[in-house]
């Protein structure tokens, strides 16, 4: 496609999307006409904000004093010893205020909403981390906040539901479809169509209609920019490999994007393989899906032969989505990022290992990335520098892990 050609001609992987929001075949603006004028307005507002130095200055201030950035780049010495190969560094996004990388993006979008004069914020959430971040920033800036969350996720992420309520958000449990993240996104889009004049839809990942994938990527790219400086300070050179988990893919895109044009750096995205890629119960859109159109963009999707979207499965609610951000789909097709996967079993094992070796309880989402770090690091030389994005903390997952382990124990007896 033309974007692939153009982007390669300029010798960069960082030039996308094109003016219509396409990353090669992927991306675009597949939305109902009612929303088209809104996303065109949003694109204009975002373009203006990017060009306004005061917007970035204000954001940097909030990132420093409210979010707690920069997040540390930490040398995971005992995990490194355990693996016996590459030097493993953690990008500690779980130390951000609200406990995940999600807040980086929400801050940017809420500042944009205020700039556009919007007075009501809606968001979808899966694991609840994006919902918590949105509820938090809405509290800080005094905006009403409505969070759509699948009723299955409401049940399995109780601590985050409680946090959102305490922060003053209204939770709307979604009973349609598979009652998870994709259905929450459908319902948020329905709300937006019905409340176009005052409402800002704060999307939590690098998906949705243009300009969301590019905008969310830009707000999350602070992760990669900091990593670059921090690695130069720690080791005097850039890392050799980057690895991150992928649901929609915002934490991964934030880490990867600033490094895409560094030719020597290996980049790995890890999808959720659930009960295994052959089981039919997974959330690995690239490994097990094909190109299709959903939620405003074209990307790899899990679907049946007739184009009906299939339910994803993962122990991690944050990865339990049948699609992936369109820029990841493109980076896969052009071969710049290698996509791997990790099963529920592997993620839980990595969750336990990381907790015991490093005293850091990761969320189940980055535990998927850690599962592949353990294999890949072991095969690399000791001077190989590897960075994994520890995108969130695991407090929210304790119940899920406990019941998983309990079921395993009972299964073994």
């Amino acid at each position: 496609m033309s974007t692939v050609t153009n982007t390669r001609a300029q010798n960069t992987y960082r030039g996308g999307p094109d003016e219509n929001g396409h990353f090669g075949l992927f991306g675009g603006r597949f939305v109902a006409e009612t929303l088209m004028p809104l996303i065109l307005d949003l694109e204009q507002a975002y373009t203006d904000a990017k060009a306004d130095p005061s917007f970035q200055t204000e954001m940097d201030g909030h990132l420093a004093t409210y979010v707690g950035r920069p997040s540390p780049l930490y040398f995971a010495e005992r995990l490194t010893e355990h693996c016996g190969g590459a030097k493993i560094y953690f990008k500690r996004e779980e130390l951000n205020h609200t406990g995940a990388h999600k807040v980086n993006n929400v801050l940017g979008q809420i500042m944009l909403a205020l700039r556009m004069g919007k007075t009501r914020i809606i968001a979808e959430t899966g694991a609840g981390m994006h919902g918590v971040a949105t509820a938090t920033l809405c509290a800080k800036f005094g905006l009403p906040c409505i969070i759509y969350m699948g009723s299955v996720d409401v049940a399995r992420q109780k601590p985050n539901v409680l946090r959102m309520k305490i922060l003053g958000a209204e939770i709307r449990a979604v009973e349609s479809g598979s009652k998870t993240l994709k259905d929450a996104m459908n319902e948020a889009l329905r709300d937006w169509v019905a409340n176009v004049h005052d409402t800002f839809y704060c999307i939590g990942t690098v998906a949705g209609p243009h300009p969301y994938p590019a905008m969310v990527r830009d707000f999350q790219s602070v992760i990669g920019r900091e990593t670059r400086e921090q690695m130069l300070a720690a080791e005097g050179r850039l890392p050799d490999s980057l690895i991150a988990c992928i649901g929609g893919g915002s934490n991964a895109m934030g880490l990867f994007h600033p490094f895409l044009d560094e030719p020597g750096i290996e980049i790995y995205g890890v999808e959720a393989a659930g009960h295994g890629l052959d089981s039919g119960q997974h959330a690995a859109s690239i490994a097990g899906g094909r190109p299709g159109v959903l939620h405003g963009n074209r990307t790899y999707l899990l679907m049946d032969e007739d184009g009906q979207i299939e339910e994803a499965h993962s122990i991690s609610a944050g990865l339990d989505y049948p699609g992936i951000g369109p820029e990841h789909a493109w980076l896969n097709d052009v071969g710049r990022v290698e996509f791997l996967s990790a099963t529920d079993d592997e993620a839980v094992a990595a969750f336990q290992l990381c907790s015991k070796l490093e005293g850091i309880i990761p969320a189940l989402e980055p535990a998927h990335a850690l599962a592949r770090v353990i294999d890949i690091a072991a095969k690399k030389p000791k001077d190989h520098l590897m960075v994994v994005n520890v995108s969130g903390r695991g407090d929210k997952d304790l119940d899920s892990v406990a019941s998983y382990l309990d079921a395993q124990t009972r299964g073994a007896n």
Partner: protein
Amino acid sequence: MVTRIDKTFAALKRQGRAGLVTFITAGDPDYDTSLAMLKGLPAAGATVIELGMPFSDPMADGPAIQASSQRALRAGQTMKKTLSMVREFRAEDDTTPIVLMGYYNPIYVYPVDRFIADAVDAGVDGLIVVDVPPEEDEELRPAANAGGLDVIRLATPTTDAKRLPAVLANTSGFVYYVSIAGITGTAAPDIAAVGAHVGRIKAHTDLPIAVGFGVKTEQQVSELAGIAEGVVVGSALVSAIAESLDAGGKATAKTKPHLLGLVERLSAALRHEAEAAAV
């Protein structure tokens, strides 16, 4: 080529009345009942039929059409079956236009070229693909038009004066004016506001205009008949289907007459409006 859609709206114009555009979802609640209802729609007063292509994630639809899509998919409806339903209808009725309405993904994966060929062959007249705005329709519309299908675009309350010409530029058959900023079957349209918007659209196009989203009652239908060339009713019809089902969601003896009875009443309201206007 004079299409079935063109002929139908020309006939309505001669008769001095607006047409009733009825929406049902293909395969709801099952293939056979849905086909029987489809075949009964013209005699009950439907002038144009919108046939929904069920999709797992109908983002622009309210609860009634969502449930209708789910019923059809649970009963095993596929795109191939939807096209075969049109083919069976067309064997008996060569005049009533059928417009397929739905979302892009099942068309995209069919894939597009084969879908258009099969749709033309089955006797489809037009397409409304809710999530393909003008900005993205180069991959669908030119091929559909070349095959003889109208691609009917939606204009909405948010389609401002700056955008309207682009929306109307390549539309054909008729223009679908979405009477509320919202999803199907929810808020009731504000008739005066709809009239103003439809007037604005008419200044830019000679195509007939059909108004829908949120139209449920005979009174709304007759009020809108004075404003537009077609009035679309969808959620109210699929709700009538839902009301007629047994506890297990299966069709009953009441299903077809319950739906067609409602279509007859809505159609009668349109004709009364036309007669009253003529007097």
